[in-house]
Structures are given as structure tokens and as C-alpha cells.
């Protein structure tokens, strides 16, 4: 849903109007029916009708999800008012789930997901179909490794690498950008040429070039991804700094005889930091995709450490008969990227003054 379409206020819930109790009960009814129906359809699609053709089960599950979404949407609007953004809060919840399960992966009861030597003589079948009520809820791969466990450990790698990369990018790119935007002149021109040169490489090609010379450890991967993000941060910080440096409070501070260091650290950085941070979610999403693309090409983090990219790459050989190998990690990845984009768009709306003006 785009940010600029204002959700239409529901009848009976416009501020100041008296709520008709009958319609309230009616709406609650509708929410309850939607919740129960949605959960029932999802449960039936995912767990019960195991002997029905997979296509019908997918349709049933998706239908249940849509029903559940609308029920949650109207339920949320009843409780928190007509401006409640269901999609946004679902996205926040999803990011929290992925983040927490990645953080506590070691304490969660997954079947073996990483060590292929442990499953080789085990009794877990290979290429097992997903069955939510079994020990391998999302099935197993060619080496009988648990797919769900792999997804969670993959989330850990993805999030660690891309959050670290964004942190490096913010610190390095932000510093360079603020300095260039404040001092201007030759320094600014030089930084501009370097930024242009970094942006002259198509993003994935730059990553390939870096991957050709680096050890493929998570730390190096984070550095390579940071290089990808730094030009964006330099530009953002530079432009924001230039805008704020013209403002009255900077002039006032200068008139009172503040040193340049004080102006940068006390006046500019606090103002520039927020719009830069507001881009962090979206850039994390971009970097997750970049890391996964590199892993998919076999140039990122290698097996046995599972990542979303290398799981999908390994699954593509026989995914015509075992589509869960590709689509289970794929859907989780899509939802994560989608949720981060959604949260990031809201963050920009709230914290980036340039965005708010538009």
C-alpha cells in the first residue's frame, strides 16, 4: 500500500461520532468469523488435508491468509482507531520474529540443520515433504538436513552480515558525507569523484569483483556489502549537511563563536543522523538480497553454513519435484525483505524531513 493513500475512515468511526452499538457488535462478529475462518483454512491447508493435491492446499492456505489479514485489519481498526496500519504492524511483528528466532536459534528445538555427517546414518529421510506436525516442519533437503532450521540459521547469517554492513556504512559514509558537505570546496569535489567512481560499477558486478579477491567469511562479506552501501550514505549525509548548514541555528551558533568541531558535532550530526538512520531498514533489505544473490551464485558464504541464498541454489536442481527446497527459504526471504521495506518506508516518512515534504 503506498504511503500517500489515506485509508478511508470507516463509517461510525469518524472522530466525534457516536458509535452505534449494534454495528459495533456486527463488526466484532465479522472479525471473529474472519479470524476463525482464516485460521481454520490455514490449518486445513497446511496440516490436515495431506492427501489432497498440493495446488489446492496452497490455494486454501493463501485464501485463509487473505481472510485472516482482513479480519486483523478490521479488528485492529476497532481497537486502535481507523488510522491503524495493519500491514505495517504485521511487518514489524515479522521482523521481530525473524530477528528473535535468529538470535535464539541455538536454544530452539530444531532437527539437525547444519552437520550433514550427523544425518547421514540417522533415520530422517532425505527430501522429506513439509509436514508442520513432524520433527521437520518444512521438510528436509537432499542431505536430510532440516529446512526450517536452515532458514533460521540462514536468517542469522543474513541479518548479522547486513546489519554489520549497514553499521560500517553509516559510520564511514556518514562521516565522509558530513565532512564533505560541511567543508565543501576541493575536498567535496574529490569525494564526489570517488563516489561517482564507486557508483560506476553496477552493484552486483562490484560485489563479484570484491568476491574474486576476498576470503568468503561473514566478516569480509559485511565489508564488501558496506562498500556497496557507502556511496549512498555519503550522498545522503552530504546533502543533509548542506541543507542544515544553511539553517539559522547554525548561523546563530557560528555568530556566538562556536568552533567548527562544535558546529559539526553539536549542531549538524544530531540533525543529519536521523534521516540517515531512517534509510537503514531499506538498505538492510537491499543488502540481504545482495548477500543472498552472491550466495546463490556460489560466491558467498559456503555450505555447511546455511544461508538463504545457498539453500535456494542447492534446491534448484530438483525443485520441479521438491519445490519446498526453493520456496520455503524463498518465501521467508521475500517476507523479510518486504517487511523491512514496509518498515523502512514508514521510517523515512517519519524521520526524513525531505521525504515528509513531498
Amino acid at each position, binding site marked *: *500500500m*503506498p504511503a500517500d*493513500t489515506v485509508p478511508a475512515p470507516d463509517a461510525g468511526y469518524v472522530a466525534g461520532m457516536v458509535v452505534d452499538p449494534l454495528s459495533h457488535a456486527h463488526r466484532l462478529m465479522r472479525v471473529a468469523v474472519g479470524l476463525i475462518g482464516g485460521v481454520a483454512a490455514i490449518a486445513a491447508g497446511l496440516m490436515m488435508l495431506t492427501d489432497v493435491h498440493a*495446488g489446492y492446499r496452497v490455494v486454501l492456505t493463501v485464501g485463509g491468509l487473505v481472510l485472516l489479514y482482513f479480519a486483523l485489519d478490521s479488528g485492529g481498526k476497532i481497537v486502535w482507531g481507523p488510522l491503524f496500519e495493519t500491514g505495517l504492524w504485521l511487518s514489524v511483528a515479522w521482523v521481530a520474529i525473524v530477528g528473535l528466532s535468529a538470535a535464539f536459534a541455538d536454544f530452539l528445538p530444531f532437527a539437525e540443520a547444519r552437520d550433514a555427517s550427523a544425518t547421514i546414518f540417522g533415520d530422517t529421510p532425505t527430501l522429506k515433504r513439509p509436514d508442520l506436525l513432524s520433527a521437520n516442519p518444512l521438510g528436509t533437503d537432499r542431505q536430510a538436513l532440516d529446512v526450517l532450521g536452515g532458514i533460521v540459521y540462514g536468517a542469522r547469517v543474513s541479518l548479522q552480515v547486513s546489519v554489520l554492513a549497514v553499521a560500517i556504512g553509516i559510520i564511514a559514509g556518514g562521516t565522509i558525507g558530513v565532512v564533505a558537505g560541511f567543508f565543501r570546496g576541493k575536498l567535496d569535489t574529490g569525494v564526489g*569523484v*570517488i563516489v*561517482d*567512481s564507486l557508483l*560506476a*560499477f*553496477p*552493484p*552486483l*558486478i*562490484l560485489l*563479484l*569483483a*570484491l*568476491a*574474486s*579477491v*576476498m*576470503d568468503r567469511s561473514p566478516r569480509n562479506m559485511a565489508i564488501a556489502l558496506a562498500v556497496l552501501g557507502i556511496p549512498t550514505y555519503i550522498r545522503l549525509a552530504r546533502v543533509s549537511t548542506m541543507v542544515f548548514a544553511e539553517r539559522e541555528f547554525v548561523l546563530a551558533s557560528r555568530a556566538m563563536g562556536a568552533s567548527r568541531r562544535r558546529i559539526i558535532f553539536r549542531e549538524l550530526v544530531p540533525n543529519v543522523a536521523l534521516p540517515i538512520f531512517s534509510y537503514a531498514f531499506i538498505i538492510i*533489505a537491499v543488502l540481504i*538480497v545482495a548477500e*543472498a*544473490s552472491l550466495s*546463490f*551464485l*556460489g*560466491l558467498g558464504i559456503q555450505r555447511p553454513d546455511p544461508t538463504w*541464498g545457498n539453500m*535456494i541454489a542447492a534446491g*534448484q536442481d530438483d*525443485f*520441479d519435484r521438491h*519445490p519446498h527446497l*526453493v520456496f520455503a527459504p*524463498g518465501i521467508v*526471504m*521475500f517476507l523479510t*525483505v*518486504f517487511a523491512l*521495506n*514496509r518498515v523502512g518506508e514508514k521510517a523515512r516518512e517519519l524521520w526524513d524531513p525531505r521525504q515528509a515534504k513531498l
Partner: protein
Amino acid sequence: MLRAIGLKLVRLVPVLIIVSLATSLLIELVPGDPILAIIGMEGDASDYERIERELGLDQNVFSRYVDWLGNIVQGDFGEQITRPGVKVADRLRQTFPVTMQIALMGMVLALLISVPVGAWAAYRAGTRFDRLSSGVAFGIISIPSFLAGLLLVFMFVFHSAIPRYGALGLGLAWSLWLLWSAGRARRDGAKQALIRVAAAVVVAGLTVWLTNRWPSFPRQGFVRWTSDDGRLENLRSAFLPAITVALTEIAVFMRLLRGDMQATLQEDYILSARAKGMPPVRILARDALRPSSFSLITLAGVAFGRLIGGTVIVEAIFRLPGMGDLIVNDGVNTGDFPVVQSGVLILATFYVVLNGAIDISYSYLDPRLRRAR
């Protein structure tokens, strides 16, 4: 005007120098001895010397760069280290057209789909069509291209019944809707109703024809444009890769054009065109498109970089013999640096020059910019 173009061209030079310098110095980043990393366990001293000479590692950094660049300007990209005797320049000549065809087809497809949808969404801002297309676009942006590629393979290659009968259902529904609206349009005159009935018949006919002759797409492989199998085979093998790389761009272009178009449609001259009774298609295509397309064109340059990156991915999925395949399989995986360096340099140079050209064409499109600066 000429001066402005000249200035822009001059600004490209330092960027190109830094790009080539960075590519040339890439090898300095290798941890340990790069030559040992290439020859591995089996090489002997003569291999070592050959590769050292080939890479110019026996010279200092500066003269190596000058030699390398001098050779490249003369069209000599050296030989593949892992396959002595194979000229890198020949490999580039074989693979570059494949990558460019995919990227170009992707760009054309993206524009063909995104421009009408985006324009119509702007014209109908706030309606169900607008909200649906914007929502779908937001979703598509979040699909990584390798996942989109595999999804397309799953649907169009393995289970082609899904899109085939999906298209049949959608087409018939559309045609029924047209018939239904023809009934309503009767009060506007028989001609209006007749047009809709005719449209319904055409849509139904096309749908049935398409379902009958549903094309099958290959899982992998590529038929060259110049091969004996003909142009149609070439397009058939390039279609799924092209639509894969186009997907993200469709969504990005659509959102951008919708925003700009919506602003343009607020202008007075659009109002006067509407007041004169111009049909919406004419207003959108003739009056509103050009002034709304400036940021789209700028973005198209950036998008081409993403497209080239995207082709690396689809070349891996669909096993296409393009530059991404060359860089990844012949270059990075075997540590063949001349291949990586040449491939990266060619793609980056192409990208820089393209963006420079777009920058220049921009001022042709927007008369207000011609006198600026």
C-alpha cells in the same frame, strides 16, 4: 549547448580513470600470494613465472597499470590464465551480445508494461486499480531476482498449466466484463455498445488462440540471434530471462511514473485538454507523458546497472553464455584475474558512458534545462 555537453564528457574522464585503476589494482587485495592462489598445488616454477609475467606482477604497480591499459585500448585483453591460448577479447566478443540482449529486452519489456500501467494508475489515482497495482508493485520490489527467475521457471516450464489456464480464466472474465459493460453502455448509443461487444469478441478470441498455442519455454540454454534456428527461437530462449530481470524494473518504473504523472495531471493545460473533451488515452500519451518522464529516464540509466547485475543472476539460473557466466565461472571461481578484470571493466565503462549519454539527452528532452548552467 555544445559547451555543456563537452563539460559533461570531461567529467566522465576522471571517473573512467579511477574505475580502470581500481580494476587493475584489484589483484593487490588478494590475501597472500595471488599467483599461488591461481596455480594451487599442481603448478611448478615455470607456471609460476608464466603467470607472473602474464599478470605483470614482475613490474611495479604503475607500469603494470599503464601496460595493461595500453593493451586494452588496442583491443588486447590478454589470455585466459586457466586456459592458455584462449584470448579474453574473443570470449568477451562472444558473451557481450548475450548479456546486452537480455538487458535490452528486459528494459523494453519493463517500459512497455510499466508506462501504460503507471499512467493509468495516476489517471485513476485512489481507485481500486491504483491501489492494487501499487500494492503489487511494492510486493514485486521485494522479490529477489533469482527467486523470481525460479518462480517463473516453476510456472512456465514445469507447470505451464498454471499460467495457461490462469490466462484463459482472466481473458474470459475480461471479455465477460466487457459484454456486461456493453449492456450498460447502451444508453450512450448503439455505437458505444457495439465497440464493447467487438472488443469482447476480440479479447475472447485472442485468449483462446493464446491458450491453444501456448509457447513452451526452455529450462536453460540460449539460441543465438545469428544462429540457423531463426530469430523466433532466439526470442523464445531469451524471454524468461528478460522478464525475470524486467520484473523489479517494472515495479520501480511504475511507482515513479505514477507519482510524476499524478503531479503533471494537476496542471492547468491538462484540465483544459479534459475540458475540450479529449479522450483520456490521448491526454495521457500526448500531453502528460513527456513532462512526466524525466525522472523515469534518469532512473532508467541507474536501472540499467541493476539490469546488468540481474543478468548475472539469470545467466546462472538459465545457463546462458553471457558475461556474468564468464565472470563468475571462468573468472571468480577459478581465480582467473584477467577475465574478471576485463569483464568488470567493460561493464563498468559501458554503464558510465550510458549514464553520461542519458545525462546529455536529458537536456534535449526538457527545454528548461538547455540554458541552465
